[in-house]
């Protein structure tokens, strides 16, 4: 007789245990980037909200920041790295096509031989990672999952580009997701719209660069198309995330969006009609746009500044190149 297969024993709920953060070691002002784009501190502040952006020096790698953020998250969670059952690294700026950044990270933080893999969902990547971590924990595949969003975008910018380069920054944010007695991560509302594939993208393929046809590929965006999508389409996603979570805007302690541009954040707040007591993360002002790292960095900032308390509800939403998006309501660690 054919035996019945064993399957993982499922766990009912999951939550985020902790967040860790690491930012680029350089503080880059608007005056530092304004020259090549014929701009000014005032123009950049008005259009983006950015006062300074954090970038990594030549000696600080993407992996250095990921290790620092992960080590902090593991310590804050109070777990042994050997208990980590999966490492998920979301990044678009890991400079090797293969192997993944996640496998190196797992080794460096003492989580070897945990399964480890990268995901490429740009600014939505951390929220994609939380969705996967939630599923891995609740399905019983892993007890704890390390989710990292990390970027060294300064390796992929063109100082003369007026569309996106002056916004971009470097950093890594990490979260430990694990089992919980109560629900801590709502269903994720996520998706993509490849019809706008070119609206945030690299200038050229690496093959054309190899063949000497183009210079080093860097990031570009069609700012207005992205702005329109990021506000009015993401409002729908945010509302749906609240609905599937079974909460209302007034139940939130915080809104933590991808830190793309303060004008997007402010317009989202307006469209969502958020009550004044909901803390809105605006880490972009001092950190800049760190793509996959921006949601955990922004969440860490409001936690460390004491603006929100552990146990409160936060709506987190990532959106960007792809175009890809993901939103979920989480209990703050």
């Amino acid at each position, binding site marked *: 007789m054919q035996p019945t297969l064993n399957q993982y024993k499922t766990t009912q709920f999951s939550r985020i245990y902790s967040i860790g953060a690491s930012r680029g070691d350089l503080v880059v002002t608007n005056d530092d980037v304004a020259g090549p784009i014929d701009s000014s501190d005032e123009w950049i502040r008005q*259009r983006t909200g950015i006062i300074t952006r954090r970038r990594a020096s030549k000696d600080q790698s993407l992996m250095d920041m990921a290790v620092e953020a992960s080590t902090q998250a593991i310590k804050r969670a109070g777990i042994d790295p050997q208990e980590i059952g999966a490492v998920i690294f979301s990044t678009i700026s890991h400079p090797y096509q293969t192997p993944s950044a996640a496998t190196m990270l797992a080794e460096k933080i003492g989580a070897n031989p945990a399964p480890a893999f990268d995901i490429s969902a740009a600014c939505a990547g951390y929220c994609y990672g939380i969705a996967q971590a939630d599923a891995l924990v609740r399905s019983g595949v892993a007890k704890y999952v390390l989710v990292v969003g990390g970027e060294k975008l300064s390796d992929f910018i063109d100082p003369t580009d007026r569309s996106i380069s002056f916004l971009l920054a470097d950093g890594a944010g990490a979260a430990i997701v694990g089992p919980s007695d109560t629900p801590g991560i709502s269903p994720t509302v996520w998706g993509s719209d490849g019809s706008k594939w070119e609206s945030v993208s690299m200038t050229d393929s690496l093959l054309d660069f190899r063949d000497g046809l183009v210079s080093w590929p860097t990031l570009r965006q069609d700012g*207005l198309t992205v*702005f329109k999508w990021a506000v009015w389409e993401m409002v729908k996603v945010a509302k749906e995330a609240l609905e599937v979570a079974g909460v209302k805007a007034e139940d939130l302690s915080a809104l933590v969006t991808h830190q793309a*541009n303060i004008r997007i954040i402010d317009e989202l707040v307006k469209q969502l009609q958020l009550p004044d007591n909901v803390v809105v993360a605006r880490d972009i002002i001092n950190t800049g746009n760190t793509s996959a790292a921006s949601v955990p960095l922004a969440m860490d900032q409001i936690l460390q500044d004491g603006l929100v308390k552990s146990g409160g509800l936060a709506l987190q939403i990532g959106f960007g190149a792809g175009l890809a998006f993901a939103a979920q309501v989480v209990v703050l660690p």
Partner: protein
Amino acid sequence: MALSQNEVLTGLAEIVNEETGIDTESVKMEKSFVDDLDIDSISMMTIVVNAEEKFSVKIPDDEVKNLITVGDAVNFITQAQG
């Protein structure tokens, strides 16, 4: 029922006022959004989306760059109402 040019202008002026605080009286047909009203591209996109909703029209992203003056926008919206 399609709105008249004047009605569209009045409605558009309200949207501009809401987004930028500019007095509705200053939003005249011949005024340029950028040069006269000092409206930046991000505010312009917000105005466009609000106008799409208010007047039940579609203003393609590619069309936005052609809307130089308030009159350009009013005419586009009036015609788009069909």
